[in-house]
């Protein structure tokens, strides 16, 4: 991945900044340019919106066969997470036993290393999720 492609998504990847449609109020993450419900009415009316980071696990899997960038990091959990704001996203779950993960588990976002571009390239940070504190 080129650094420009990574840098462009930093607000979303570091701070879960999505978009809220000012017409219907729906929150989208990852950020979208156009609200699929309001379509043309939403043009220019999608505002930055920071998610709380809290969500629940809707489904999950444990990856045993990782892609090359994640070689040496398996097994790790990937989950489909329903965020408080109603939108869904995909992310890793960390800092708990793999067999603790269950549908309905409450999680919160944390800041972790996601990938790196070999030994000489850039490091890519982003969100992962851990058991919610309370």
């Amino acid at each position, binding site marked *: 991945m080129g650094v420009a492609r990574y840098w462009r998504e930093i607000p979303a990847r570091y701070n879960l900044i999505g978009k809220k449609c000012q017409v219907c109020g729906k929150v989208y993450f990852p950020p979208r340019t156009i609200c699929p419900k309001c379509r043309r009415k939403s043009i220019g009316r999608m505002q930055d919106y920071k998610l709380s980071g809290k969500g629940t696990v809707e489904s999950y899997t444990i990856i045993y066969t990782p892609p090359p960038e994640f070689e040496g990091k398996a097994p790790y959990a990937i989950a489909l997470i329903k965020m408080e704001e109603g939108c869904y996203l*995909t992310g890793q779950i960390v800092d708990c036993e793999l067999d603790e993960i269950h549908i309905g588990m409450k999680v919160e976002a944390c800041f972790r290393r996601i990938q790196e571009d070999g030994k000489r390239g850039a490091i890519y940070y982003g969100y992962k999720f851990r058991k919610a504190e309370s």
Partner: protein
Amino acid sequence: MREVAIIGIGMTEFGELWQKSFRELVAEAGVKAILDAGIEGENIDAMYIGGMSTGRFIGQEHVGSLALEVAGLEDLHIPATRVEAACASGGVAMHQGYIAVASGMYDIVVVGGAEKMTDVVGGEATNILASAADREWESFFGATFPGLYALMARYHMHHHGTTQEQLAMVAVKNHHNGSLNPKAQFRREISIEDVLNSPIVAEPLHLLDCSPITDGAAAAILAPVDIARKYTDKIIKIKASVQACDTLSFHSRSRFDSLPAAVHAAKKAYEMAGVKPSDIDVAEVHDCFTIAEIIAIEDLGFVEKGKGGKATEDGLTALDGQIPVNTSGGLKAKGHPVGATGVAQINEIVMQLRGEADKRQVKGATIGLTHNVGGSGGTAVIHILEAI
């Protein structure tokens, strides 16, 4: 809009074909189809070729032009176009070919699909296949393609009670069918234990729940029904050709236990063909993973939502069942050279409708369906064919 028929089919064997290059695969499938149709090169008006990621698998783009050159038809200067929709590339190529003929723009059209996946190492292939998913918001975080279908599987198991064993039964059935298909990558029967004991790829999916990395190519020749009679008595009419799309990312979908694009395409296809799900005699569905077949037979209306696992267990979709699914062995046993799959599915249904499926023959099959999906459901293409 004219009625469109398939007048010829051809495909290579599927497998790890070290000796055959991408170009040779394209040539082999194309030539077989042209000979099967009994047409001359001069008759061809256009070519559509499906290929998911020729750029990354073999470093080659502009594959339409390559296919033309491989076919030796450059003097005709006909249009040749590569079509891409991840794993639905072949099906979409078919749909493009259908539109071309139905509209009256072209008469005889060659539709093909090919993928050469073994010229790169396994890890690279996994990475390339991950581009069928959302690179920025799924693959970036480590979600693999099997991982996304695993999310679907766990969700389906949680909400509908589908079991690990029922998933395995899909693989067992398809391997049985594959053992009867001389072109299949895997021709060995397997048991439920084999599946459950195979290494876990992405829980709950085991290695044998997943379709393999495969080389292969398939082709079909389309012609308007009126002209078709000049070439063959066995007219296979395309009664429906429907493509539908949905979000690329799985997490943005409106449902997690179904592929809304497939449901939508199927509904429109049944309307277009004037048939009901129960009229289908044989179907080739997109079993990139075992869970995908279970969801497919629900989405296609063969069974109620949630009952796909039980139906498989009860033998509904077996070769001798009420609605035989994946008689070719499916993507699971026949193999999944990504871009070729959609056209290979057409090949199988045409053979079934012609009565040429030999040991896999579904007796008296007259109406068949193909279901080809791209990514985790971002694209779905349904074809309904009838022998007339």
